[in-house]
């Protein structure tokens, strides 16, 4: 069983469109949507939820007003600005370190388990999908990503699936690292712009850091052919193989609006490119 993650650095370059296309094309796989704070893959795959789990992670402080002696020691020690001047906990700032509870002389602070999201195992027309929904403004997205990836791996092992295909989050922070660790390859989808190049460069550095091979796809390459070449040259020089290019095509937006992957869409050209990209990627991994 091999794991592939689709990443981009910059948002909106076509990660989910690419993952959706692979979901339609690749046989015998499990899909995972690791963009847990703005998940979109379900809009293409219309999953039917078969298992639903609460995601509890970390703790949050709570001050018992009746027991509080208003000494302000909690405010003094908190480094996250999570204790307000009126000695309330600002939940979205609390990082759950528990120092306030330990130093409170009146034992007025308790650390309560934090329900910060939900995750699901679902069935789709292209097979099993594991996905999640992080609560608004929550942290621990990296842990939620690790949790759903673990579940996808278990399903893949039990059912003898060949692939785990992961739709990754934008950026290079904790959910990205949790999406990337231990995978067999990164499929880096970028766009031909100075931002696309800049952000892809940081994902390539992250790939090096984790010693994971990276393959590049430039999406909407014909918006700026010169920048596309510049990105491909940069990648080749940095040990990143070029798996293919996709043109700008309104068929992509049309497919998304109809809740379809581009493999079910109207553009034969796009389908042919995706098949080539997959052949390249598969060849490089095995």
């Amino acid at each position, binding site marked *: 069983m091999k794991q592939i993650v689709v990443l*981009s*650095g*910059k*948002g*909106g*370059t076509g990660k*989910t469109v690419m993952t959706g296309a692979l979901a339609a094309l690749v046989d015998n796989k499990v899909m995972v949507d690791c963009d*847990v*704070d*703005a998940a*979109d893959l379900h*809009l293409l795959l219309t999953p039917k939820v078969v298992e639903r789990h609460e995601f509890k992670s*970390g*703790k949050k402080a709570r001050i018992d007003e009746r027991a509080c002696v208003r000494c302000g020691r909690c405010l003094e*020690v908190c*480094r*996250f*600005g999570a204790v307000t001047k009126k000695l309330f906990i600002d939940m979205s700032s609390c*990082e*759950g*370190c*528990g*120092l306030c509870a*330990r*130093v409170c002389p009146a034992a007025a602070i308790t650390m309560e388990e934090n329900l910060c999201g939900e995750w699901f195992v679902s069935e789709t027309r292209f097979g099993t999908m594991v996905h999640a929904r*992080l609560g*608004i*403004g*929550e*942290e621990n*997205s*990296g842990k939620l990503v690790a949790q759903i990836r673990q579940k996808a791996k278990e399903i893949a092992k039990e059912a003898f699936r060949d692939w785990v295909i992961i739709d990754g989050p*934008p*950026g*290079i*922070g*904790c959910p*990205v*690292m949790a999406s990337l660790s231990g995978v067999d390859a990164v499929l880096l989808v970028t*766009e*031909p*712009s*100075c*931002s*696309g190049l*800049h*952000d892809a460069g*940081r994902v390539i*550095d*992250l790939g090096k*850091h984790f010693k994971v091979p990276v393959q590049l796809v430039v999406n909407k390459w014909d*918006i*700026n052919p010169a*920048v596309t070449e510049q990105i491909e040259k940069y990648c080749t020089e940095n040990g990143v193989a070029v798996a293919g290019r996709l043109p*700008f095509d*309104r068929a992509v*937006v049309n497919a*998304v*609006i109809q*809740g379809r992957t581009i493999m079910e869409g109207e553009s034969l050209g796009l389908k042919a490119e995706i098949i080539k990209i997959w052949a390249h990627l598969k060849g490089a991994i095995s």
Partner: protein
Amino acid sequence: MIIAVASGKGGTGKTTVAVNLALVLEKVDFFDSDVEEPNAHLFLKPDIKITSEVAVPVPVIDAGNCTGCGKCAEVCAYHALAVIPHPGKKSQVLVFPHLCHACGACSLLCPAGAIREEARNIGVIEEGECGNIRFLHGKMNVGEVLSPTIIRRLKGKVRPDAVTIIDAPPGTSCPVVAAIRGVDFCVLVTEPTPFGLHDLTLAVDVVRQMKIPFGVVINRAGLGNDAAEDYCRAEKIPVLAKILFDREIAVRYSTGDTLADKSPEMAKIFTELYQNICQVKNEADRCS
């Protein structure tokens, strides 16, 4: 007034809106708080004058004073400290700096006073200017995770009386909350696709929960459907501006070019956007 530009979904045009809004305002402070992937500098091309390291305090164990009691590992909520027992000898404490949230619990609670803190760099804040725009951004080092910490430090440089634009990171989790906390107004940029709409609804949940007045900018209008506008109408959310899809804009974006300072039509869109922001903000102030 502090205006944040956020979106939920990435790649909808936050940086385009933030940068061009800054260009029509001329005298403004600009903060790029997408510290994982900052891009605004590629468009504003600021002259960076000051670079400062962002460091967090991480524990260092003084092996001489350490009694191996294990209190530090017990109090660490992030498993950044581990006690390795050595039978017949004193236990040894290992520190994993990448897991540390710099809360200070271990050093404060060590009964032997054997933990001091040392600065560890996780990124930089760069400050400069382009014309009348004061420009700042944060840049997290590759492989680090404490982006909210860098964002909070960056926002520590906001001047209370200056008109300030904050370009926020994508998503709805802790980095976004850190970026938009305390702002006076939030512009949510979306695109007219099911992805754009879905993530807009999540972003709306965030700003409503944080009680920040907000409005929506629909970018690439015409490339997609009307669902985002229908949603805004149904939810009584003001649409502050619509930017039509134009392949030419995409090409100019790709080269790092700006819009509002190059064409009067574009300048008009962003000037009106600012007027609409002020109007919606004033109405919100009257209601509260």
